[in-house]
Structure formats: structure tokens, C-alpha cells
């Protein structure tokens, strides 16, 4: 259980390595109701749309960033995840999920932790950038 007292401005969350696979993206798309070939699953469709290859749906990147945050909060809850898709997220490339604590405030009997979150390539180039709010207990006891 993460408590507010343990969190400090500038703390780093992660980094956690993550690679999206075409099989994983296909499974996600099926669940999402995106059946048939698309920029997410087909090399050919992606190239026709001017992309270098099939990409990861934005909401799948969000789900993975959410996991980074709730795993770290360990019992805390996600209040907001607000992201900007800066560049297409490719399949089969080692990526990094990372966060930085940028603000802290007690609010309504809980601690609110504000975090910058990034999904970035191994060379540091940021593909998805965002801001998140997490609520954690003021005292873990």
C-alpha cells in the first residue's frame, strides 16, 4: 500500500519495459470491436495510410500507462489519465513506460499525486505524453 507520506516531488515511477506484439494488438482490437484489417493490424493498410507499419491503438497505450500507475499506487486509485498521442506507437519495439511525480496535495481526506507519464522509445523519444492524477491514502497505517 503506497501512502502519501512516502511520495515526494520528483520521484520517478518505473521505468517499465514494454513491447506491444501484433498478436496482442489483434486480441485488443477484437475485444474493441475493430474487426477486419486496419492500420492497427495490417502492414498493407498502415502503409497505404502513410504509416511506417501497423500501430498500437491509442487506448491500448493508455491501458498500459494506467497499469504502470495503479501498480505503483498499490491500492490507490486513478482519478485522471489525460494523454496526447505525439507519434504512432509501433509493434515489436522495446518501449519504456515512465512517470515523474510533479505535484502533491491533500484533498478530501486523501493524498492526490499528480504525475507526468510517458511512453517512450529506448532512445528517449516520447511517443505518448500525459498527465495523471492518483489518489492514495494519507497514511498507510
Amino acid at each position: 500500500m503506497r501512502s502519501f507520506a512516502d511520495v515526494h516531488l520528483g520521484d520517478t515511477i518505473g521505468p517499465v519495459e514494454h513491447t506491444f506484439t501484433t498478436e496482442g494488438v489483434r486480441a485488443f482490437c477484437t475485444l474493441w470491436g475493430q474487426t477486419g484489417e486496419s492500420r492497427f493490424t495490417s502492414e498493407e493498410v498502415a502503409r497505404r495510410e502513410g504509416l511506417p507499419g501497423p500501430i498500437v491503438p491509442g487506448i491500448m497505450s493508455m491501458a498500459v500507462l494506467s497499469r504502470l500507475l495503479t501498480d505503483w499506487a498499490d491500492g490507490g486509485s486513478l482519478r485522471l489519465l489525460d494523454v496526447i498521442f505525439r507519434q504512432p506507437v509501433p509493434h515489436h519495439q522495446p518501449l519504456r513506460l515512465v512517470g515523474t511525480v510533479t505535484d502533491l496535495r491533500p484533498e478530501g481526506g486523501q493524498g492526490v499525486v499528480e504525475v507526468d507519464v510517458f511512453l517512450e522509445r529506448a532512445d528517449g523519444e516520447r511517443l505518448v505524453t500525459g498527465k495523471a492524477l492518483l489518489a492514495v491514502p494519507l497514511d498507510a497505517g
Partner: protein
Amino acid sequence: MATQVEFNRSLLGQPLPAGTFTVSKEGILAFCRAVGETNPLYTDEEWARRQGHPTLLAPPTYPNLFIRHLGRPEVLSVPVRQRMHAGQAVEPLRPIYAGDTLSATTRLKDVYTKTGRTGTMAFIVWETTFTNQRGEEVARVRESFMARL
């Protein structure tokens, strides 16, 4: 004179009923498998019950899945070369449980133009609220789409 994009202004701020969605246990488990989610609140019904919940919870970004199925009118009245997802914000307000039925209401928040690496673009911003069968607002999702003009 500012470059403005032609769009249906009567839609701005109007609440539009946009569909009803059922949250199933199978759907939650499949979502968790697809994104590698292992938090037992979302994967282990018994564990969730022991934490005081009636059943399995949906992960925080789960309502995102319903967005592409919303019934929404066309906004722009100009030709568009390509559409891309520019950004999204999900704001979980209350727990969403397996078995919940969520009603979506969507509103056009904003339409504006700017320029970027891909030329002149129109940005279309929608906000959707999801309400459960008990009338409680459980999540808000704001999406921003970029249309290359």
C-alpha cells in the same frame, strides 16, 4: 482574418444520447489479458469481493472501449484528407463493475484549427459521460481527433 473551419455549430455543447453498453466479466478478463493487467481487483472476482466490492471491477480505462461505438453525427462540412486520434482523457468517477449497464451521453466540446508537422489541421473535441443503471456518473472521457485538411 483567422482561418476557421466550417462545422455544424448547432452541435456545440448539446448532450446527445450515444448508446448503452454492458460490462461483462468476460470482457474485463479479455481486456486484462490483452494489456497485461494483473491487478487482482480486475482479474480475481473472489479477491475483489474480499476487498469489499460486489464483484470484479473494470480497469480505469475500460470505458475507452465503448467510444468508437458511440453514435455521433459528422461535425466538419469540409473534405478531410486523414483523421488521427490526437489525445484522450479518461476520468474514472466511481467503480464500474461486471454486470453494469452504462448509458453514454456525448457532447461536442470544441472545434479549432492549428498547424503542425502534417500541415493545417482541425481539432474536434468530444466529451462523453457514462452513467450506470443506478443513475450514477461513473466515468468521463474526452477525446480529441485531428483532421488533416
